[in-house]
């Protein structure tokens, strides 16, 4: 009840946030900007073989969605850092924490409020991917749940990291660290071309610690053509999602522990 009330209030606050409105405006711009290339791809695809055309259109959709999805990761990190820090800065946290609310309940409510926002974002992203494929004259063959669940788990990780960091430092610093770690994780990924810059033991160690969300990218399913749809087994799905949820849970528990003993004065 208490967590739900905090989560819904957080979600309501986020929907009125100017930066979120900016994100949504950007979202609409992407749709408008991509209409021309997608329609052009549809025309070119008419001169190609069916499989080739499908691969090309879905490749473009995947590239666009990677960008939109990447923004989603930033949004998740920023929103999670902001919802906690803005409460502390404005002092609204004092009236809330004077109620019989435990600190972890407050933090969980804030975290779930951000997840609600990300559900809306993922649904919009899901609709956008289908819209883009339709404009290109193709269909997305991937299971809908992969396109919904994978980004949600990825955003859960980024928002949990942001929640952890913001309990210890300024939100801008927290956000910068998230940016750096996400870039570092992609550089250190086994598939990365730059992996040779570090010794293998160090690269593997860092890759294990950093939020390695490459496997949780739904873009890899968007690019899969109909003929290759069954290449991912359920154990692979389960492992990837379990990894993501586990990472988010550990970060959140650390955040709750850190928040438990910190001052709630205005910062």
């Amino acid at each position, binding site marked *: 009840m208490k967590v739900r009330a905090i989560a819904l209030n957080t979600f309501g606050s986020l929907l009125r946030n100017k930066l979120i409105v900016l994100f949504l405006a950007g979202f609409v711009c992407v749709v408008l900007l991509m209409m021309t290339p997608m329609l052009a791809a549809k025309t070119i695809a008419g001169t190609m073989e069916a499989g080739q055309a499908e691969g090309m259109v879905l490749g473009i959709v995947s590239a666009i969605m990677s960008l939109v999805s990447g923004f989603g990761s930033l949004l998740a990190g920023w929103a999670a850092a902001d919802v906690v820090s803005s409460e502390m800065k404005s002092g609204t946290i004092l009236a809330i*924490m004077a*109620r019989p609310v435990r600190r972890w309940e407050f933090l969980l409510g804030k975290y779930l409020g951000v997840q609600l926002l990300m559900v809306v974002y993922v649904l919009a992203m899901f609709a956008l991917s289908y819209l883009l494929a339709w404009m290109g004259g193709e269909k997305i063959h991937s299971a809908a749940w992969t396109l919904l669940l994978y980004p949600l788990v990825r955003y859960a990780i980024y928002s949990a990291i942001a929640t952890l960091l913001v309990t210890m430092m300024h939100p801008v610093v927290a956000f910068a660290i998230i940016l750096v770690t996400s870039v570092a994780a992609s550089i250190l990924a086994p598939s990365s071309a730059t992996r040779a810059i570090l010794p293998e033991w160090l690269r593997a160690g860092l890759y294990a610690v950093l939020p390695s969300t490459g496997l949780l990218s739904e873009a890899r399913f968007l690019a899969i053509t109909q003929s290759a749809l069954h290449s991912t087994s359920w154990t692979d799905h389960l492992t990837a999602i379990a990894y993501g949820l586990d990472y988010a849970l550990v970060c959140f528990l650390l955040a709750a522990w850190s928040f438990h003993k910190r001052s709630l004065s205005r910062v």
Partner: protein
Amino acid sequence: MSAPAIEFHNVTKVYQRRFSSERVAALTDVSFEVAAGEVCAFLGPNGAGKTTSISILMGFLFADSGDVRVIGYEPGDVRAKEHIGFLPENFAFYKHLTAEELLRLHWALTGKGGPIVDGLITRLLIKVKLQGYEHLKIGKYSRGMIQRLGVAQALLGDPQLLVLDEPTSGLDPAGRKEVLDLLATLKSQGKTVFLSSHVLPEVEQICDRVVIIDRGHLVRAGQLGELLGSGNCVELTVDRLSADGEAIAAARGAAIERGRNQVRLVFDAALKREMAELLWSTGCDIISMNPVKGTLEELFLKLVSDYERVE
């Protein structure tokens, strides 16, 4: 006798900036108690440590040493917070909510479960004179309206203990009076009120106990009546004062204040019988004789200036 509502024992709090050796002692060995059912004024100049003390009391900050109990529990314990109504200093609320939405949110956080009792929000808003504004976004409220709403949210859930940090801040004289009347009502209902304020004459009207701190140290704590004293001086009003009478009064250290139709003399209470007889013998009529009590403001200024001189 019931357990104290608030217990502060040898509380010390030192602020230290991160990556800096600079240390500021906000509270040093502060001890006081507030009994259940009392209205306690928590006084001190700006920067005395009042808000730090209240933050520790509410579990927002942690004392470096000492022991604090609120309704028998550690600060921040949800069992204590179930019975506390809190109004922070210069508090802020979610601007996108209306008063009704905010009170519903706070009701959900009280953990009492179930939907809010019918009419409770309306009654609270009437109590703080905000009826008719319940559907207006808080972002459009004036400072005074926000303060009234803050008082309303503090009263939500019928708390046993009210902790109010500057409850009359931002209010006009009429608003201040309404809040003080409200506090007087709460006092008559047996609630414990712990409030900080700079408006001492108003606080004096309702408080039973006073705790004064300055620069993080306890200056004085006790019952208001004891601290102000009573009967140390008397005020004698006579219709006229002859030269003989003036000489007699002056010789006994009386302060003389001449009005249009009467003369007011203030002197040591021990001399009241002697003075009355001597003045009567000079031919003046005694209109009244009353004990003179110091005011809270006078006491506060004296104690703080004495303390600062010693420091």
